[in-house]
Protein backbone atom coordinates (compact mmCIF):
# COMPACT_ATOMS: atom_id res chain seq x y z
CA UNK A 1 0.00 0.00 0.00
CA UNK A 2 2.87 2.35 0.86
CA UNK A 3 4.29 1.80 -2.60
CA UNK A 4 1.04 2.83 -4.23
CA UNK A 5 0.93 6.04 -2.18
CA UNK A 6 4.57 6.78 -2.91
CA UNK A 7 4.29 6.35 -6.66
CA UNK A 8 0.70 7.55 -7.05
CA UNK A 9 1.66 11.01 -8.43
CA UNK A 10 3.86 9.50 -11.18
CA UNK A 11 1.25 6.91 -12.04
CA UNK A 12 -1.43 9.59 -12.03
CA UNK A 13 0.52 11.68 -14.55
CA UNK A 14 0.98 8.57 -16.69
CA UNK A 15 -2.71 7.75 -16.49
CA UNK A 16 -3.56 11.29 -17.58
CA UNK A 17 -1.61 10.63 -20.78
CA UNK A 18 -3.82 7.58 -21.41
CA UNK A 19 -6.88 9.77 -20.95
CA UNK A 20 -5.52 12.34 -23.41
CA UNK A 21 -4.67 9.61 -25.94
CA UNK A 22 -8.19 8.18 -25.55
CA UNK A 23 -9.81 11.55 -26.18
CA UNK A 24 -7.80 12.25 -29.33
CA UNK A 25 -8.23 8.74 -30.69
CA UNK A 26 -11.99 8.74 -29.94
CA UNK A 27 -12.61 11.92 -31.93
CA UNK A 28 -10.33 11.08 -34.86
CA UNK A 29 -11.38 7.43 -35.17
CA UNK A 30 -15.10 8.26 -35.11
CA UNK A 31 -14.67 10.79 -37.92
CA UNK A 32 -12.39 8.54 -39.94
CA UNK A 33 -14.63 5.52 -39.37
CA UNK A 34 -17.63 7.44 -40.70
CA UNK A 35 -15.68 8.47 -43.79
CA UNK A 36 -14.62 4.85 -44.29
CA UNK A 37 -18.18 3.54 -44.03
CA UNK A 38 -19.35 6.17 -46.55
CA UNK A 39 -16.57 4.94 -48.86
CA UNK A 40 -17.62 1.31 -48.43
CA UNK A 41 -21.26 2.07 -49.29
CA UNK A 42 -20.61 4.50 -52.13
CA UNK A 43 -21.63 3.94 -55.76
CA UNK A 44 -17.98 4.27 -56.79
CA UNK A 45 -16.31 0.84 -56.97
CA UNK A 46 -12.80 2.26 -56.49
CA UNK A 47 -13.74 3.82 -53.17
CA UNK A 48 -15.54 0.65 -52.08
CA UNK A 49 -12.47 -1.45 -52.80
CA UNK A 50 -10.12 1.05 -51.15
CA UNK A 51 -12.27 1.11 -48.01
CA UNK A 52 -12.61 -2.68 -47.87
CA UNK A 53 -8.89 -3.26 -48.32
CA UNK A 54 -8.03 -0.70 -45.65
CA UNK A 55 -10.46 -2.16 -43.09
CA UNK A 56 -9.43 -5.78 -43.69
CA UNK A 57 -5.71 -5.09 -43.59
CA UNK A 58 -5.80 -2.89 -40.49
CA UNK A 59 -8.27 -5.10 -38.63
CA UNK A 60 -6.06 -8.15 -39.06
CA UNK A 61 -2.79 -6.49 -38.11
CA UNK A 62 -1.78 -6.53 -34.44
CA UNK A 63 -1.97 -3.09 -32.83
CA UNK A 64 1.56 -3.61 -31.55
CA UNK A 65 2.81 -3.83 -35.14
CA UNK A 66 0.77 -0.79 -36.20
CA UNK A 67 2.22 1.32 -33.40
CA UNK A 68 5.79 0.02 -33.72
CA UNK A 69 5.64 0.64 -37.46
CA UNK A 70 4.24 4.15 -36.95
CA UNK A 71 7.07 5.01 -34.59
CA UNK A 72 10.10 3.24 -36.08
CA UNK A 73 9.03 3.19 -39.72
CA UNK A 74 6.90 6.24 -40.43
CA UNK A 75 8.39 8.60 -37.89
CA UNK A 76 12.06 7.61 -37.63
CA UNK A 77 12.72 6.31 -41.13
CA UNK A 78 10.34 8.22 -43.36
CA UNK A 79 10.47 11.46 -41.41
CA UNK A 80 6.83 11.87 -40.39
CA UNK A 81 7.39 14.30 -37.54
CA UNK A 82 4.64 16.08 -35.64
CA UNK A 83 6.83 17.98 -33.21
CA UNK A 84 10.49 18.60 -32.47
CA UNK A 85 10.04 17.53 -28.85
CA UNK A 86 10.51 13.73 -28.88
CA UNK A 87 7.86 13.10 -26.23
CA UNK A 88 5.22 15.26 -27.93
CA UNK A 89 6.09 13.70 -31.26
CA UNK A 90 5.70 10.15 -29.98
CA UNK A 91 2.39 11.11 -28.34
CA UNK A 92 0.98 12.20 -31.71
CA UNK A 93 2.50 9.24 -33.53
CA UNK A 94 0.77 6.86 -31.10
CA UNK A 95 -2.46 8.89 -31.26
CA UNK A 96 -2.34 8.63 -35.06
CA UNK A 97 -1.65 4.87 -35.06
CA UNK A 98 -4.37 4.20 -32.50
CA UNK A 99 -6.88 6.32 -34.43
CA UNK A 100 -6.09 4.63 -37.75
CA UNK A 101 -6.46 1.23 -36.06
CA UNK A 102 -9.69 2.02 -34.18
CA UNK A 103 -11.24 3.64 -37.26
CA UNK A 104 -11.39 0.21 -38.94
CA UNK A 105 -13.45 -1.15 -36.03
CA UNK A 106 -15.68 1.92 -35.97
CA UNK A 107 -16.30 1.39 -39.69
CA UNK A 108 -17.23 -2.26 -39.13
CA UNK A 109 -19.60 -1.37 -36.29
CA UNK A 110 -21.29 1.33 -38.36
CA UNK A 111 -21.60 -0.95 -41.36
CA UNK A 112 -23.33 -3.53 -39.20
CA UNK A 113 -25.68 -0.72 -38.11
CA UNK A 114 -26.40 0.27 -41.70
CA UNK A 115 -27.39 -3.32 -42.35
CA UNK A 116 -30.10 -3.09 -39.69
CA UNK A 117 -31.80 -0.12 -41.37
CA UNK A 118 -34.84 -1.53 -43.19
CA UNK A 119 -34.67 -1.50 -46.95
CA UNK A 120 -37.85 0.56 -47.17
CA UNK A 121 -36.04 3.51 -45.60
CA UNK A 122 -33.47 3.68 -48.39
CA UNK A 123 -36.12 3.02 -51.01
CA UNK A 124 -38.33 5.80 -49.66
CA UNK A 125 -35.36 8.16 -49.61
CA UNK A 126 -34.68 7.37 -53.25
CA UNK A 127 -38.35 7.68 -54.12
CA UNK A 128 -38.54 11.27 -52.88
CA UNK A 129 -35.47 12.04 -55.00
CA UNK A 130 -32.69 12.25 -52.43
CA UNK A 131 -29.21 11.76 -53.81
CA UNK A 132 -26.81 9.16 -52.39
CA UNK A 133 -25.10 11.64 -50.06
CA UNK A 134 -28.43 13.07 -48.94
CA UNK A 135 -29.98 9.70 -48.15
CA UNK A 136 -26.82 8.61 -46.36
CA UNK A 137 -26.63 11.81 -44.33
CA UNK A 138 -30.28 12.33 -43.52
CA UNK A 139 -31.83 8.86 -43.55
CA UNK A 140 -29.38 5.98 -43.23
CA UNK A 141 -26.53 7.11 -40.98
CA UNK A 142 -28.71 8.75 -38.29
CA UNK A 143 -30.58 5.47 -37.86
CA UNK A 144 -27.41 3.39 -38.15
CA UNK A 145 -25.67 5.42 -35.45
CA UNK A 146 -28.61 4.92 -33.11
CA UNK A 147 -28.54 1.14 -33.41
CA UNK A 148 -24.79 0.85 -32.90
CA UNK A 149 -24.33 3.14 -29.92
CA UNK A 150 -23.68 0.17 -27.63
CA UNK A 151 -21.23 -1.62 -30.00
CA UNK A 152 -19.47 1.70 -30.59
CA UNK A 153 -19.19 1.99 -26.82
CA UNK A 154 -17.45 -1.42 -26.78
CA UNK A 155 -15.09 -0.21 -29.50
CA UNK A 156 -14.29 2.89 -27.45
CA UNK A 157 -13.75 0.82 -24.29
CA UNK A 158 -11.39 -1.45 -26.21
CA UNK A 159 -9.61 1.64 -27.54
CA UNK A 160 -9.18 3.06 -24.03
CA UNK A 161 -7.64 -0.25 -22.93
CA UNK A 162 -5.46 -0.20 -26.03
CA UNK A 163 -3.88 3.11 -25.05
CA UNK A 164 -1.66 0.99 -22.79
CA UNK A 165 0.05 -0.42 -25.89
CA UNK A 166 1.49 3.09 -26.49
CA UNK A 167 4.78 1.68 -25.18
CA UNK A 168 5.18 -0.17 -28.49
CA UNK A 169 4.99 3.17 -30.29
CA UNK A 170 7.84 4.56 -28.22
CA UNK A 171 5.60 6.69 -26.01
CA UNK A 172 6.99 5.87 -22.59
CA UNK A 173 5.02 8.32 -20.46
CA UNK A 174 1.73 6.44 -20.17
CA UNK A 175 0.44 4.44 -17.21
CA UNK A 176 1.64 1.04 -18.50
CA UNK A 177 5.19 2.26 -19.11
CA UNK A 178 5.23 4.07 -15.76
CA UNK A 179 4.02 0.92 -14.03
CA UNK A 180 6.76 -1.09 -15.71
CA UNK A 181 9.34 1.46 -14.58
CA UNK A 182 8.07 1.34 -11.01
CA UNK A 183 8.07 -2.47 -11.09
CA UNK A 184 11.70 -2.33 -12.18
CA UNK A 185 12.55 -0.73 -8.84
CA UNK A 186 9.97 -2.24 -6.50
CA UNK A 187 9.24 -5.58 -8.13
CA UNK A 188 5.66 -6.62 -8.82
CA UNK A 189 3.42 -4.71 -6.49
CA UNK A 190 -0.18 -5.82 -6.16
CA UNK A 191 -1.50 -2.49 -4.79
CA UNK A 192 0.01 -0.53 -7.69
CA UNK A 193 -1.41 -2.97 -10.24
CA UNK A 194 -4.85 -2.88 -8.66
CA UNK A 195 -4.69 0.91 -8.42
CA UNK A 196 -4.09 1.28 -12.16
CA UNK A 197 -6.67 -1.36 -13.01
CA UNK A 198 -9.25 0.48 -10.91
CA UNK A 199 -8.33 3.74 -12.65
CA UNK A 200 -8.95 2.13 -16.02
CA UNK A 201 -12.22 0.65 -14.80
CA UNK A 202 -13.24 4.09 -13.59
CA UNK A 203 -12.68 5.27 -17.15
CA UNK A 204 -14.27 2.38 -19.07
CA UNK A 205 -17.28 1.61 -16.90
CA UNK A 206 -18.92 5.05 -17.25
CA UNK A 207 -18.40 4.80 -21.02
CA UNK A 208 -20.14 1.41 -20.95
CA UNK A 209 -23.02 2.58 -18.78
CA UNK A 210 -23.43 5.82 -20.71
CA UNK A 211 -23.51 4.16 -24.13
CA UNK A 212 -25.83 1.47 -22.76
CA UNK A 213 -28.22 4.11 -21.44
CA UNK A 214 -27.91 6.12 -24.64
CA UNK A 215 -28.61 3.13 -26.85
CA UNK A 216 -31.80 2.35 -24.92
CA UNK A 217 -32.86 5.99 -25.13
CA UNK A 218 -32.12 6.35 -28.82
CA UNK A 219 -33.37 2.93 -29.90
CA UNK A 220 -35.42 3.20 -33.07
CA UNK A 221 -38.79 1.57 -32.49
CA UNK A 222 -39.52 -0.76 -35.37
Amino acid sequence: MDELIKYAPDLGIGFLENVKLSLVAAVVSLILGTVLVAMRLSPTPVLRVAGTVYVNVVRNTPLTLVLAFSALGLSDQLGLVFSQTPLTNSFWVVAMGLSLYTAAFVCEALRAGVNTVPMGQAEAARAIGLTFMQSLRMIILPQAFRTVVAPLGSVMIAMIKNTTVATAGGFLADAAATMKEVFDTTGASIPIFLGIVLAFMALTMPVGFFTGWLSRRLAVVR
Partner: protein
Amino acid sequence: MSTTVLFDAPGPRGRVRNSALTVVSVIVVGAALYGVYLGFDAKDQFEGKIWQPFLMWETWDFYIIPGLIGTLQAAAVAAVLALAFGAIFGLARLSDHAWIRIPAGVVVEVFRAIPLLLLIFFIFYLAPAVLGGGDYAFMAVVVGLMLYNGSVLAEVVRAGVHAVPKGQSEAAYAVGMRKNQVMRLVLLPQAVTAMMPAIVSQLVVLLKDTALGYIIAYVDLLNTGFKILPARFFGSLIPAAIVIGIIYVALNMALSFLATWLERRSRRSRKTAAAPVVAPGSAEVGVAAGQGTEGGGVAPDRPVE
Protein backbone atom coordinates in the same frame (compact mmCIF):
# COMPACT_ATOMS: atom_id res chain seq x y z
CA MET B 1 -30.33 -4.25 -46.53
CA SER B 2 -27.99 -4.63 -49.40
CA THR B 3 -25.75 -1.72 -50.16
CA THR B 4 -27.13 -1.34 -53.66
CA VAL B 5 -30.49 -0.16 -52.34
CA LEU B 6 -28.81 3.09 -51.35
CA PHE B 7 -28.64 4.24 -54.94
CA ASP B 8 -30.74 3.66 -58.04
CA ALA B 9 -29.64 1.82 -61.12
CA PRO B 10 -28.08 4.91 -62.69
CA GLY B 11 -29.63 6.62 -65.69
CA PRO B 12 -27.60 8.39 -68.39
CA ARG B 13 -26.73 11.37 -66.20
CA GLY B 14 -26.08 9.15 -63.22
CA ARG B 15 -23.72 7.01 -65.26
CA VAL B 16 -21.79 10.09 -66.36
CA ARG B 17 -21.63 11.30 -62.78
CA ASN B 18 -20.52 7.88 -61.52
CA SER B 19 -17.83 7.67 -64.16
CA ALA B 20 -16.66 11.15 -63.22
CA LEU B 21 -16.61 10.13 -59.55
CA THR B 22 -14.71 6.97 -60.42
CA VAL B 23 -12.11 8.99 -62.30
CA VAL B 24 -11.81 11.48 -59.44
CA SER B 25 -11.50 8.73 -56.83
CA VAL B 26 -8.95 6.84 -58.94
CA ILE B 27 -6.94 10.06 -59.09
CA VAL B 28 -7.29 10.68 -55.34
CA VAL B 29 -6.45 7.08 -54.32
CA GLY B 30 -3.70 6.98 -56.93
CA ALA B 31 -2.28 10.28 -55.73
CA ALA B 32 -2.28 9.02 -52.13
CA LEU B 33 -0.49 5.81 -53.15
CA TYR B 34 1.93 7.79 -55.33
CA GLY B 35 2.60 10.13 -52.40
CA VAL B 36 3.47 7.12 -50.24
CA TYR B 37 5.62 5.79 -53.09
CA LEU B 38 7.46 9.09 -53.38
CA GLY B 39 7.98 9.23 -49.62
CA PHE B 40 9.38 5.69 -49.64
CA ASP B 41 11.48 6.40 -52.72
CA ALA B 42 12.92 9.60 -51.27
CA LYS B 43 14.21 7.54 -48.36
CA ASP B 44 15.51 4.83 -50.71
CA GLN B 45 13.06 2.21 -49.51
CA PHE B 46 12.89 0.57 -52.94
CA GLU B 47 16.57 -0.17 -53.25
CA GLY B 48 17.14 -3.81 -54.01
CA LYS B 49 19.73 -3.97 -51.26
CA ILE B 50 17.28 -3.71 -48.36
CA TRP B 51 14.79 -6.14 -49.91
CA GLN B 52 17.55 -8.59 -50.69
CA PRO B 53 17.51 -10.32 -47.26
CA PHE B 54 13.96 -11.55 -47.86
CA LEU B 55 15.09 -13.50 -50.90
CA MET B 56 17.64 -15.43 -48.85
CA TRP B 57 16.63 -18.65 -47.17
CA GLU B 58 18.74 -17.88 -44.09
CA THR B 59 16.58 -14.86 -43.28
CA TRP B 60 13.51 -17.05 -43.18
CA ASP B 61 15.34 -19.88 -41.51
CA PHE B 62 16.97 -17.82 -38.73
CA TYR B 63 14.48 -15.04 -38.11
CA ILE B 64 11.04 -15.28 -39.60
CA ILE B 65 10.22 -18.98 -39.20
CA PRO B 66 11.45 -19.28 -35.59
CA GLY B 67 9.47 -16.12 -34.81
CA LEU B 68 6.39 -17.52 -36.49
CA ILE B 69 6.79 -20.73 -34.49
CA GLY B 70 7.06 -18.66 -31.30
CA THR B 71 3.86 -16.81 -32.17
CA LEU B 72 1.97 -19.97 -33.10
CA GLN B 73 3.22 -21.79 -30.00
CA ALA B 74 2.05 -19.05 -27.68
CA ALA B 75 -1.24 -18.79 -29.56
CA ALA B 76 -1.85 -22.54 -29.53
CA VAL B 77 -1.10 -23.03 -25.83
CA ALA B 78 -3.06 -19.92 -24.89
CA ALA B 79 -5.99 -20.99 -27.09
CA VAL B 80 -6.26 -24.41 -25.44
CA LEU B 81 -5.99 -22.94 -21.96
CA ALA B 82 -8.42 -20.12 -22.77
CA LEU B 83 -10.98 -22.60 -24.10
CA ALA B 84 -10.68 -24.66 -20.93
CA PHE B 85 -10.87 -21.53 -18.77
CA GLY B 86 -13.86 -20.30 -20.75
CA ALA B 87 -15.68 -23.61 -20.53
CA ILE B 88 -15.13 -23.95 -16.77
CA PHE B 89 -16.01 -20.37 -15.87
CA GLY B 90 -18.84 -20.12 -18.39
CA LEU B 91 -20.49 -23.20 -16.90
CA ALA B 92 -19.71 -22.04 -13.37
CA ARG B 93 -21.59 -18.82 -14.11
CA LEU B 94 -24.61 -20.90 -15.09
CA SER B 95 -24.50 -22.88 -11.85
CA ASP B 96 -27.52 -23.04 -9.60
CA HIS B 97 -25.32 -22.56 -6.53
CA ALA B 98 -24.69 -18.92 -5.71
CA TRP B 99 -21.35 -19.75 -4.06
CA ILE B 100 -20.03 -20.96 -7.43
CA ARG B 101 -21.89 -18.56 -9.67
CA ILE B 102 -20.93 -15.29 -7.98
CA PRO B 103 -17.15 -15.81 -7.61
CA ALA B 104 -16.98 -17.05 -11.21
CA GLY B 105 -18.87 -13.97 -12.34
CA VAL B 106 -16.49 -11.67 -10.48
CA VAL B 107 -13.42 -13.38 -11.97
CA VAL B 108 -14.80 -13.15 -15.51
CA GLU B 109 -15.86 -9.52 -15.23
CA VAL B 110 -12.58 -8.43 -13.64
CA PHE B 111 -10.27 -10.10 -16.15
CA ARG B 112 -12.34 -8.77 -19.03
CA ALA B 113 -11.95 -5.24 -17.75
CA ILE B 114 -8.16 -5.27 -17.22
CA PRO B 115 -6.08 -3.94 -20.14
CA LEU B 116 -4.30 -7.04 -21.40
CA LEU B 117 -0.85 -5.47 -21.54
CA LEU B 118 -1.04 -4.46 -17.86
CA LEU B 119 -1.99 -8.04 -16.98
CA ILE B 120 0.96 -9.40 -18.97
CA PHE B 121 3.36 -6.92 -17.32
CA PHE B 122 2.07 -7.86 -13.90
CA ILE B 123 2.48 -11.61 -14.46
CA PHE B 124 5.90 -11.00 -16.00
CA TYR B 125 7.10 -9.20 -12.86
CA LEU B 126 5.19 -11.35 -10.38
CA ALA B 127 6.39 -14.73 -11.66
CA PRO B 128 10.10 -14.37 -10.74
CA ALA B 129 9.11 -13.19 -7.25
CA VAL B 130 6.91 -16.22 -6.70
CA LEU B 131 8.64 -18.92 -8.72
CA GLY B 132 12.28 -17.84 -8.55
CA GLY B 133 14.51 -16.67 -11.38
CA GLY B 134 14.12 -17.59 -15.00
CA ASP B 135 12.59 -16.38 -18.23
CA TYR B 136 8.88 -15.92 -17.84
CA ALA B 137 8.11 -14.08 -21.08
CA PHE B 138 6.33 -17.09 -22.61
CA MET B 139 4.42 -17.78 -19.43
CA ALA B 140 3.38 -14.16 -19.01
CA VAL B 141 2.06 -13.95 -22.57
CA VAL B 142 0.24 -17.28 -22.35
CA VAL B 143 -1.30 -16.74 -18.92
CA GLY B 144 -2.31 -13.17 -19.78
CA LEU B 145 -3.96 -14.29 -23.00
CA MET B 146 -5.61 -17.21 -21.22
CA LEU B 147 -7.15 -15.06 -18.47
CA TYR B 148 -8.38 -12.34 -20.80
CA ASN B 149 -9.62 -14.42 -23.73
CA GLY B 150 -10.84 -17.15 -21.39
CA SER B 151 -13.07 -14.59 -19.69
CA VAL B 152 -14.47 -13.43 -23.02
CA LEU B 153 -15.03 -17.07 -24.01
CA ALA B 154 -16.79 -17.71 -20.71
CA GLU B 155 -19.30 -15.06 -21.72
CA VAL B 156 -19.63 -16.72 -25.13
CA VAL B 157 -20.34 -20.07 -23.47
CA ARG B 158 -22.96 -18.51 -21.24
CA ALA B 159 -24.58 -16.72 -24.17
CA GLY B 160 -24.49 -19.95 -26.18
CA VAL B 161 -26.30 -21.97 -23.51
CA HIS B 162 -28.82 -19.17 -23.07
CA ALA B 163 -29.39 -19.13 -26.82
CA VAL B 164 -30.80 -22.67 -26.76
CA PRO B 165 -34.60 -22.34 -26.59
CA LYS B 166 -36.06 -22.98 -23.16
CA GLY B 167 -38.29 -25.77 -24.42
CA GLN B 168 -35.22 -27.94 -24.97
CA SER B 169 -34.21 -28.05 -21.31
CA GLU B 170 -37.83 -28.22 -20.18
CA ALA B 171 -38.36 -31.24 -22.40
CA ALA B 172 -35.16 -32.83 -21.11
CA TYR B 173 -36.23 -32.34 -17.51
CA ALA B 174 -39.67 -33.68 -18.39
CA VAL B 175 -38.24 -36.98 -19.58
CA GLY B 176 -36.48 -37.27 -16.21
CA MET B 177 -32.90 -36.19 -16.96
CA ARG B 178 -30.73 -34.74 -14.23
CA LYS B 179 -29.20 -31.25 -14.34
CA ASN B 180 -25.88 -32.73 -15.37
CA GLN B 181 -27.47 -34.77 -18.14
CA VAL B 182 -29.53 -31.86 -19.43
CA MET B 183 -26.39 -29.74 -19.72
CA ARG B 184 -24.19 -32.48 -21.14
CA LEU B 185 -26.59 -34.21 -23.52
CA VAL B 186 -29.01 -31.49 -24.55
CA LEU B 187 -27.80 -27.94 -24.00
CA LEU B 188 -24.05 -28.08 -24.68
CA PRO B 189 -24.12 -29.95 -28.01
CA GLN B 190 -26.53 -27.36 -29.40
CA ALA B 191 -24.79 -24.43 -27.74
CA VAL B 192 -21.37 -25.38 -29.13
CA THR B 193 -22.69 -25.18 -32.69
CA ALA B 194 -24.10 -21.73 -32.01
CA MET B 195 -20.88 -20.62 -30.30
CA MET B 196 -18.46 -21.83 -32.95
CA PRO B 197 -18.18 -18.63 -35.04
CA ALA B 198 -17.77 -16.46 -31.94
CA ILE B 199 -15.10 -18.81 -30.57
CA VAL B 200 -13.11 -18.76 -33.80
CA SER B 201 -13.23 -14.99 -34.05
CA GLN B 202 -12.07 -14.72 -30.45
CA LEU B 203 -9.14 -16.95 -31.43
CA VAL B 204 -8.26 -14.40 -34.13
CA VAL B 205 -8.12 -11.79 -31.37
CA LEU B 206 -5.92 -14.10 -29.33
CA LEU B 207 -3.54 -14.72 -32.22
CA LYS B 208 -3.25 -10.99 -32.87
CA ASP B 209 -2.62 -10.27 -29.21
CA THR B 210 0.36 -12.61 -29.03
CA ALA B 211 2.15 -9.65 -30.63
CA LEU B 212 2.01 -7.96 -27.21
CA GLY B 213 4.82 -10.34 -26.30
CA TYR B 214 7.04 -8.04 -28.35
CA ILE B 215 6.92 -5.51 -25.53
CA ILE B 216 8.23 -7.96 -22.91
CA ALA B 217 10.76 -9.38 -25.40
CA TYR B 218 9.05 -12.72 -25.98
CA VAL B 219 10.57 -14.22 -29.14
CA ASP B 220 7.58 -14.01 -31.47
CA LEU B 221 7.19 -13.08 -35.12
CA LEU B 222 7.06 -9.36 -34.38
CA ASN B 223 10.22 -9.58 -32.30
CA THR B 224 12.39 -11.60 -34.67
CA GLY B 225 10.96 -9.89 -37.74
CA PHE B 226 10.82 -6.30 -36.59
CA LYS B 227 13.51 -5.95 -33.93
CA ILE B 228 16.21 -8.56 -34.53
CA LEU B 229 16.06 -8.79 -38.31
CA PRO B 230 16.36 -5.03 -39.04
CA ALA B 231 19.22 -4.85 -36.54
CA ARG B 232 21.05 -7.52 -38.54
CA PHE B 233 20.22 -6.13 -41.99
CA PHE B 234 20.55 -2.40 -41.53
CA GLY B 235 17.87 -0.39 -43.30
CA SER B 236 15.48 -3.27 -43.86
CA LEU B 237 13.02 -2.06 -41.25
CA ILE B 238 10.19 -1.11 -43.58
CA PRO B 239 10.47 -4.15 -45.85
CA ALA B 240 10.48 -6.26 -42.68
CA ALA B 241 7.33 -4.56 -41.41
CA ILE B 242 5.62 -5.17 -44.74
CA VAL B 243 6.62 -8.84 -44.88
CA ILE B 244 5.56 -9.72 -41.35
CA GLY B 245 2.45 -7.57 -41.74
CA ILE B 246 1.46 -9.74 -44.70
CA ILE B 247 2.06 -12.89 -42.65
CA TYR B 248 -0.12 -11.66 -39.79
CA VAL B 249 -2.90 -10.50 -42.10
CA ALA B 250 -2.85 -13.80 -44.02
CA LEU B 251 -3.00 -15.88 -40.82
CA ASN B 252 -5.82 -13.85 -39.32
CA MET B 253 -7.83 -13.61 -42.50
CA ALA B 254 -7.64 -17.39 -42.92
CA LEU B 255 -9.06 -17.79 -39.41
CA SER B 256 -11.70 -15.10 -40.06
CA PHE B 257 -12.83 -16.89 -43.20
CA LEU B 258 -13.16 -20.06 -41.14
CA ALA B 259 -15.40 -18.14 -38.73
CA THR B 260 -17.58 -16.78 -41.53
CA TRP B 261 -17.83 -20.21 -43.11
CA LEU B 262 -18.77 -21.84 -39.81
CA GLU B 263 -21.39 -19.19 -39.23
CA ARG B 264 -22.92 -19.65 -42.63
CA ARG B 265 -22.93 -23.38 -42.11
CA SER B 266 -24.54 -23.23 -38.69
CA ARG B 267 -27.17 -20.87 -40.07
CA ARG B 268 -28.00 -23.46 -42.73
CA SER B 269 -27.83 -26.56 -40.61
CA ARG B 270 -30.76 -27.58 -38.50
CA LYS B 271 -28.80 -29.47 -35.88
CA THR B 272 -29.35 -26.73 -33.35
CA ALA B 273 -32.29 -24.61 -32.39
CA ALA B 274 -30.01 -21.87 -31.09
CA ALA B 275 -29.14 -18.77 -33.11
CA PRO B 276 -25.40 -17.99 -33.48
CA VAL B 277 -24.08 -15.93 -30.58
CA VAL B 278 -21.89 -12.84 -30.76
CA ALA B 279 -18.76 -12.35 -28.66
CA PRO B 280 -19.54 -9.94 -25.83
CA GLY B 281 -18.18 -6.50 -26.49
CA SER B 282 -17.75 -7.26 -30.13
CA ALA B 283 -18.38 -4.42 -32.52
CA GLU B 284 -20.57 -6.48 -34.75
CA VAL B 285 -24.31 -6.43 -34.76
CA GLY B 286 -25.69 -9.81 -35.60
CA VAL B 287 -22.58 -10.94 -37.42
CA ALA B 288 -20.13 -12.62 -35.11
CA ALA B 289 -16.51 -11.54 -35.28
CA GLY B 290 -14.07 -10.48 -32.65
CA GLN B 291 -12.47 -7.15 -32.78
CA GLY B 292 -8.96 -6.91 -31.57
CA THR B 293 -6.67 -6.37 -28.58
CA GLU B 294 -9.54 -5.20 -27.75
CA GLY B 295 -12.10 -7.89 -28.07
CA GLY B 296 -14.23 -6.96 -25.23
CA GLY B 297 -14.70 -4.52 -22.54
CA VAL B 298 -17.12 -3.94 -19.80
CA ALA B 299 -20.26 -4.44 -21.83
CA PRO B 300 -22.95 -2.93 -19.64
CA ASP B 301 -25.77 -4.86 -21.13
CA ARG B 302 -25.85 -8.00 -23.17
CA PRO B 303 -24.51 -7.60 -26.68
CA VAL B 304 -26.88 -7.06 -29.52
CA GLU B 305 -27.74 -10.47 -30.80
